[in-house]
């Protein structure tokens, strides 16, 4: 049966204060309100429903454990929150309860230069970690779009993706082991093996992956041992223009087959994306008119390897009909990768007027062969909803390499949709969820995955999880969820996992 949750009363608040101290607990409305939302469309007309009852900022694994014990004992929902920069609503509370904010867990615990690992608390920011490692001559080779602000713990929670994953992998590849507080309060360690710094092992089940991308539904990750890299000698971004999307798409295949191991990323921008950027981005405004699609690439490695790879790349682009867009464009485009594009005044109505908006990023994982078909269907769906509701704006599509350590295989098909939250009501919110679901259905029809890195936590996507994970996988999720979290306190309602408690799932 579905859990009946206890109310957070003054007694619970007092107990929390006893665990973390008065300064680290708040019930003030505005403090709760700011932690209800994340940077994806948020139903501000229903803000109140997502308010947590209390916010708590623990300072140690032990404090997290005591908080979870308390919550489990009283059956109070717990929603972990890192920077709150996720592009799906994994950190948005659905059942109120305790908002557990991990930001005070922000220390580097150990840097092992001999074995090239770093152990951190998960509330540390990626840029800050990067700065620290740089001082010792090492590289934190994880580069999500949210690099300047996201926290490693949040990246672990969502199973995050890195722009340069083609050369250095993504979060699942870079985390070697973790300290996890289970919903019962028990503190465990999981890793590639039982040893914290080993990168490959065959001892036992591979349990580490359970806690990557779990969206806070299985526990709280408080510490992690991470892989770190030597500082690369060379960084080389290069962008190319094409007069047709299809030409760029074919050229992407040639690039993939060249087996360039220093190629960290290739990103294909379709015609709608280029047109969108031409509205506001000076670099794109200046592009030749016949450039309707762009491929951006970046290489990391030794000088010799990168130089050799760039020669192969330029030859392939020439043969594929691409145009080098120059050093200034390429370097500027790469340097601004964390900064640009998604801004609240870039959305437009169909009449071209500015529409203060947030953005939704649909982030499906799609096979190379299916990219053109899914792309066309997505644009067509958005046009349909634009015409019907006049509130969506199509920011175009980027297709990023998605496979770890190799620039081929599947791609993140990433579409930006601009949505004016201030105009949202139930009907428009429902329309958004419906559009989201239909786009995800297209992906499943083409043997893709609903989400590559943001997490399928929102209604619309979440209802399709049992379809994507059919043939036993979703049943396993339900069994695991109920076994780990018998009282359904951890981020309840996400992934549709309330169903695990309706009746016992059997394999």
């Amino acid at each position, binding site marked *: 049966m579905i859990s009946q949750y206890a109310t957070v009363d003054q007694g619970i608040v007092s107990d929390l204060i006893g665990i973390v101290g008065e300064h680290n607990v708040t019930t003030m409305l505005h403090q709760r309100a*700011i932690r209800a939302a994340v940077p994806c469309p948020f139903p501000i007309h229903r803000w109140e429903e997502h308010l947590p009852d209390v916010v708590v900022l623990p300072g140690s694994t032990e404090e997290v454990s005591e908080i979870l014990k308390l919550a489990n004992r009283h059956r109070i929902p717990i929603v972990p929150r890192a920077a709150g920069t996720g592009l799906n609503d994994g950190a948005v509370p659905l059942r109120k309860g305790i908002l557990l904010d991990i930001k005070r867990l922000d220390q580097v615990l150990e840097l092992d230069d001999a074995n090239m690992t770093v152990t951190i608390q998960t509330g540390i920011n990626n840029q800050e970690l990067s700065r620290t490692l740089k001082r010792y001559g090492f590289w934190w080779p994880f580069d999500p779009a949210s690099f300047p602000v996201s926290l490693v713990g949040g990246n672990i929670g969502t199973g995050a993706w890195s722009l340069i994953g083609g050369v250095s992998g993504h979060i699942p590849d870079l985390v070697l082991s973790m300290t996890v507080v289970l919903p019962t309060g028990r503190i465990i360690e999981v890793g590639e093996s039982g040893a914290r710094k080993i990168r490959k092992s065959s001892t036992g089940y591979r349990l580490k992956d359970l806690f990557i991308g779990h969206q806070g539904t299985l526990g709280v990750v408080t510490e992690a041992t991470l892989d770190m890299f030597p500082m690369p000698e060379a960084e080389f971004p290069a962008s190319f223009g094409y007069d047709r999307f299809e030409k760029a798409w074919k050229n992407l295949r040639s690039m993939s087959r060249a087996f360039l191991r220093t190629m960290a990323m290739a990103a294909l921008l379709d015609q709608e994306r280029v047109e969108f950027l031409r509205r506001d981005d000076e670099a794109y405004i200046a592009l030749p008119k016949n450039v309707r699609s762009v491929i951006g690439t970046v290489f990391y490695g030794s000088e010799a390897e990168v130089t050799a790879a760039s020669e192969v790349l330029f030859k392939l682009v020439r043969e594929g009909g691409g145009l080098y867009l120059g050093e200034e464009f390429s370097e500027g485009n790469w340097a601004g990768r964390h900064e640009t594009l998604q801004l609240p005044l870039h959305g437009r109505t169909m009449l071209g007027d500015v529409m203060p908006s947030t953005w939704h990023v649909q982030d499906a994982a799609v096979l190379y062969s299916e990219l053109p078909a899914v792309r066309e269907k997505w644009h067509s769906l958005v046009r349909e909803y634009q015409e019907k509701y006049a509130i969506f704006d199509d920011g175009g599509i980027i297709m990023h390499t998605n496979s770890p350590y190799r620039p081929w295989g599947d791609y993140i098909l990433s579409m930006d949709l601009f949505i004016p939250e201030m105009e949202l009501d139930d009907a428009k919110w429902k329309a958004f969820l419906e559009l989201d679901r239909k786009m995800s259905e297209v992906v499943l029809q083409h043997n893709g995955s609903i989400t590559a890195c943001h997490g399928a936590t929102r209604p619309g996507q979440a209802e399709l999880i049992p379809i994507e994970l059919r043939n036993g996988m979703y049943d396993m999720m339900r069994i695991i969820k109920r076994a780990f979290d018998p009282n359904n306190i951890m981020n309840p309602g996400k992934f549709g996992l309330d169903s695990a408690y309706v009746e016992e799932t059997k394999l």
Partner: protein
Amino acid sequence: MTEQFRIYSKDAYHIPLSKGQKPPAELALDNYLTFACRHKFCLEVCPVYQVTRNEAHTSYGFHTSLFAIWKGIGNIEELGGTFTHCLQCGACEVRCPNTLFMGDFYKVTQTTIELVRKVRSDLVRAGVGFPGLDEVKKEVEFHLQAISKRDDLMKWTEGLDVQVGGRCDLVLYVSRFTATQATETARAAAKLLKKAGLNFSVIDMPQAGIGEALDIAREDKFVELARKDVDKLREMGAEMVVVVDPHDYFFFRRIFTRIFGELPFKVVFITDVLWQMMEEGRLVAQNEIHKRVIYHDPCTLNKLTNVWESPRKILSKIPGVQFTDEHHIDQWYYCCGNGVSTFKKVNPEIAFTIGQRRIRRALDLGGKTLALGCPHCWDHLTEVKTKSKSDIELINVIEILAQSVGV
């Protein structure tokens, strides 16, 4: 009574918040643009957030709190403890994508500092107040008394043989804080201008320089004092005013101009003038100064008025100085901890921690001397240094230059 003065750059900020009433829709739109952006670059760049790790203490937190109230969630009565957690250093403004990419065109430049001042003052007007308000009021009263005491205020000029108060097209502006708390900096500035052969006059009995008034609904007093100084400078025939305190420079450049329109004189910061004198050969740094120096960018220069080159150029030209530069954009993340107005008085412990971290960063780079451009940084870091028993040397760039020039 902010509507009497153009204190804020956005009209909506002039409408006071009141208990039990929704903020105006124009303000909600301004708040929404930060809520909806949600790049949240304003988090990690904020020196306060770096210590408290509380996202309420950031531009995102301030704007979203008000936006939530507009949506009927929350009330202004509980905002005081949150809105006091801002140094007004400007880091979130310069780092904000709204400023960087849309500011000029759409007129949506991030104005967190003004928002914080507005809310603090509105809370005072609404009878709600905020923690530490009494301390801030005392500081304002102290200033109002101090600016009438000639013996204290102008004592720093004794023995310098400089003209005080007479007509001159070049005026050296030294306000109360520097004149009384960082006398050596003021004296070094005057000596260097003299050495360069410049004919200048020192402003007599300056009145302004109390930003705290803007935080406690005393905009009228702030404007009154500012007007006195602007009028006095006009009467002196000033064509160029050289400012020694970066806080004053910020007030002149960003606030006085908004209140009074274009000023009848040019305002320049002291190190810009001194560097020009060095370039023209009118000041020669000749004495070797053997120091391992790190330069600390004052927020009011680096983040708020875009002055960061001249102090570095000066330090680079002083013989004997081993200068290790920390990039000025990296220093967007830094502050001494004092803040531009009320922060330290309300949050002394956080101010201390921020200061400790700043000194630690300098030591980590091998610095033995932290060169400063601001008397408030010097004052606060001196306190931090003493409490934390650090042996780092703290000295204003102007004073290092004076030693090298030999004045």
